[in-house]
């Protein structure tokens, strides 16, 4: 990574044009490994290799020193130890304190002058102490040709580590003490040439290997090139702490008020150009991922990150594709605004890496890109790719309600509230009694509603989708349920199928009482957490045996959630979702009914958004046609509780008034319409829309 970047060239680089730089920024023909080949378990060498960052980091990290994934972590270790700016490193976070976040970001991103002299000199002194005797030595650069043609070129790192090992072995005098062993301090691959840096005294030993055979090919070794690189100088002026520079860049480019990270015109950022960030292709290709890793290290939780950075600009970077900056989507997946204006993005392929990323992206700017002319319909694709997108190039292209539908996959028919077609409030009464009792007294419940023929089974869908807003990545544990699960997708063994089906009160009661204790949300206080539907079913067994063709009953389908309760503490623990289907028939149980069948499906918490009616859409369509609510005359005492009036009747009257206001139908017709729709307002409104053209004049309130 950046810390392993090759020795920068002597002298400051000429400033490149933004276009040129960005072009290079995006190309990465070099191997994915860091240019510097570091080797395992050589902390001392690491410490002495002249690379400041690696020096401290290597001694702290075990195993391979060149893993991409660990680079940022090491960077932070380094910074904590040596960087006066003080990157906050990984430590457990307790709760979210926005002001603390803000402070920590500011602290992490440093002041306006993050790479001060003081910072550097303090770094140097730390390093100097640790480096020991050869601080005054220089390094020579030597080029080795032939690796690409060798048999080792097919190895994972292109054979670099093999070649380095070979060179060190051959250059080292076998009789010399270990401390005199030849060590290659740095290496990087440029095309088919390996460039290594070695101590001056080792240089002749390496040159001696010229024309040796390595993996079937004759090596050509030349050097040293240029003047020896004085180490002190090197550290002081030419290998500034890259992390500190990048942090400075981030700091300058972060706007606290607007929570904008402005990464536009990176190619002409003088500080980045100065440190040779874009001087080689390998450095360029590492630049953005490194920047993202630093960002990642600043925040301990995704939530902090989401709160701190809402907008990102990558404008004016001449990007021909987003491939060099794709890591943005991993680091800032939750940004709302993204400015990609004035780049060279010319088609959908050039954006493909971000397809279906940025799930919360609200506003995307793509002006000043060839895609506008070359893919005139790109807007449609952006709508599909980014489900929350409402605004493209500052123009609103869809409403927030529509984005919700898009995120969910658009259905031709709206999601409606529950279709609850009860008979004599049987299902309603049952559900209101069942779930509180299931939480508090399952024995009575089993005895009261289940009989000798009732059946109950439980199945677990362990891989069910989870609520989109779930941030907890931990997979829920199903141990307590799995042995009882009658998921017929998973179990094929007949005895298991039979033993997991509980028939009769006793068996069901036993099953109930061995399942973990639960707490369901209140049906009254939190109705949105429930979706309860029911309708009648014919052909149930007649317990009296009189009707051959069976009797009618109700099927009740309940979707909801519950918390498991730790009985010893009374604390709610895991939250889970469930789907439970009951078939209720006439019987000798509570209220003259019995549970014929009871199937319970448990799954990971899936939230309750899915069944919330699409009020936006439907309300919109009604309001569009009737901009103002209809003024209707409501008779006195209608839709209010009164003597001799059941609660149900009041409720029906209220619904009739609602529908009447929305549609302009008379109360009488509204009542009829609701009756036909099972007293479901949403259904009734849909039915009205369909029937509207055929309704007689008298159906409407005269205007």
């Amino acid at each position, binding site marked *: 990574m950046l810390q392993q970047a090759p020795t920068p060239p002597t002298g400051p680089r000429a400033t490149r044009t933004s276009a040129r730089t960005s072009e290079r920024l995006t190309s990465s023909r070099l191997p994915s490994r860091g240019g510097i080949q570091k080797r395992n378990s050589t902390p001392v060498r690491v410490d002495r290799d002249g690379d400041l960052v690696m020096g401290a980091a290597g001694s702290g990290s075990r195993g391979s020193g060149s893993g991409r994934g660990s680079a940022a972590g090491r960077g932070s270790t380094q910074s904590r130890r040596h960087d006066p700016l003080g990157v906050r490193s990984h430590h457990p976070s307790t709760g979210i304190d926005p002001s603390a976040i803000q402070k920590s970001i500011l602290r992490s991103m440093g002041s306006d002058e993050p790479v001060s002299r003081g910072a550097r000199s303090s770094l140097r002194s730390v390093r100097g102490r640790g480096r020991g005797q050869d601080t005054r030595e220089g390094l020579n650069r030597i080029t080795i040709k032939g690796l690409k043609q060798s048999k080792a070129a097919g190895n994972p790192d292109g054979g670099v580590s093999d070649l380095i090992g070979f060179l060190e072995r051959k250059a080292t005098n076998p009789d010399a003490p270990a401390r005199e062993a030849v060590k290659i301090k740095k290496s990087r691959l440029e095309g088919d040439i390996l460039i290594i840096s070695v101590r001056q005294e080792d240089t002749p030993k390496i040159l001696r290997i010229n024309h040796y055979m390595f993996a079937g090919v004759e090596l050509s070794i030349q050097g040293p090139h240029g003047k020896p690189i004085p180490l002190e100088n090197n550290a002081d002026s030419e290998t500034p702490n890259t992390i500190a520079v990048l942090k400075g860049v981030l700091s300058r480019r972060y706007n606290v008020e607007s929570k904008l990270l402005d990464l536009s015109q990176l190619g002409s950022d003088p500080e980045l150009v100065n440190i040779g960030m874009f001087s080689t292709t390998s450095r360029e290709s590492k630049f953005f991922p490194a920047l993202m890793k630093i960002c990642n290290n600043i925040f301990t939780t995704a939530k902090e990150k989401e709160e701190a950075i809402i907008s990102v600009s990558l404008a004016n970077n001449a990007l021909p594709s987003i491939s060099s900056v794709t890591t943005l989507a991993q680091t800032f997946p939750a940004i709302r605004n993204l400015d990609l204006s004035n780049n060279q993005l010319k088609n959908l392929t050039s954006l493909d890496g971000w397809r279906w990323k940025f799930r919360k992206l609200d506003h995307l700017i793509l002006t000043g890109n060839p895609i506008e002319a070359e893919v005139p319909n790109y807007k449609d694709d952006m709508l599909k790719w980014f489900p929350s997108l409402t605004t493209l190039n500052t123009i609103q292209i869809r409403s927030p309600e529509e984005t919700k539908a898009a995120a969910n996959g658009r259905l031709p028919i709206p999601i409606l*509230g529950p279709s609850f077609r009860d008979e004599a409030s049987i299902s309603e009464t049952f559900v209101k009694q069942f779930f509180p009792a299931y939480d508090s007294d399952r024995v009575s419940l089993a005895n009261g509603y289940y009989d000798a023929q009732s059946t109950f089974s439980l199945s677990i869908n362990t891989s069910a989708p989870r609520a989109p807003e779930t941030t907890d990545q931990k997979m829920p544990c199903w141990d307590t349920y799995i042995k009882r699960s009658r998921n017929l997708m998973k179990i094929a063994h007949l005895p298991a199928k039979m033993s997991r089906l509980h028939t009769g009160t006793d068996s069901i009661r036993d099953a109930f009482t061995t399942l973990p204790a639960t707490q369901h949300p209140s049906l009254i206080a939190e109705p949105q957490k429930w979706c309860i539907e029911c*309708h009648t079913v014919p052909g149930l067994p007649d317990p009296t045996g009189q009707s051959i*063709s*069976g009797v009618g009953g109700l099927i009740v*389908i309940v979707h909801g959630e519950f918390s498991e309760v730790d009985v010893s503490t009374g604390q709610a623990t895991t939250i889970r979702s469930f789907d439970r289907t009951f078939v209720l028939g006439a019987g000798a149980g509570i209220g003259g009914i019995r549970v014929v069948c009871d*199937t319970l499906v448990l799954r990971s918490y899936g939230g309750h958004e899915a069944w919330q009616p699409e009020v936006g859409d439907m309300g919109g369509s009604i309001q569009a046609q009737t901009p103002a609510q209809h003024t209707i005359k409501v008779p006195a005492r209608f839709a209010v509780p009164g003597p001799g009036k059941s609660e149900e009747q009041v409720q029906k009257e209220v619904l009739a008034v609602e529908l009447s206001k929305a549609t302009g139908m008379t109360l009488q017709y509204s009542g009829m319409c609701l009756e036909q729709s099972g007293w479901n307002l949403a*259904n009734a409104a849909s039915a009205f829309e369909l029937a509207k053209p055929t309704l007689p004049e008298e159906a409407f309130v005269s205007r």
Partner: protein
Amino acid sequence: MSAAKTFIETYYPALSTSRSSLSSFYMPASTMPDGKPLPVIVYNGNIIPDPTSMQSLFQEQMPETRYEVQDYDSQVLNPHYVAEGAQGSAPSSGKNMTILVTVSGYVKYGEARSAATRGFSESIVLIPNPDVVGGRGKAGKEWLVQSQNFRLVV
């Protein structure tokens, strides 16, 4: 048991790839003793009046769908079912019963890669197809949907 399995294995693929056969999964339109129509089809709270409407909804309006059944369970609802209008005792074919099937899984609507994964829950009541059970015809499915309730739950 095999009725549920067969249903799962044929119905869900048909929703994606063989929508013209959808209505054949349902019992013929009839009415309950109290006059309510059968089969009952409820889709996200929408009452679908008949199998033909269900089929045309999928054929003409529904985007591409891919269903994945992750869990199903079934119970015998009525072990001694006699089809409406059937005379005398039930056939002894072992199919004189009705079955409750509950399904949990996910569905993706729309374009292949971009679609969100939506959890669904579906409860179905299957009844034997009298035409097949009675041995009077070879064609047709052995089990037909009498009632169906589909809900997106995630």
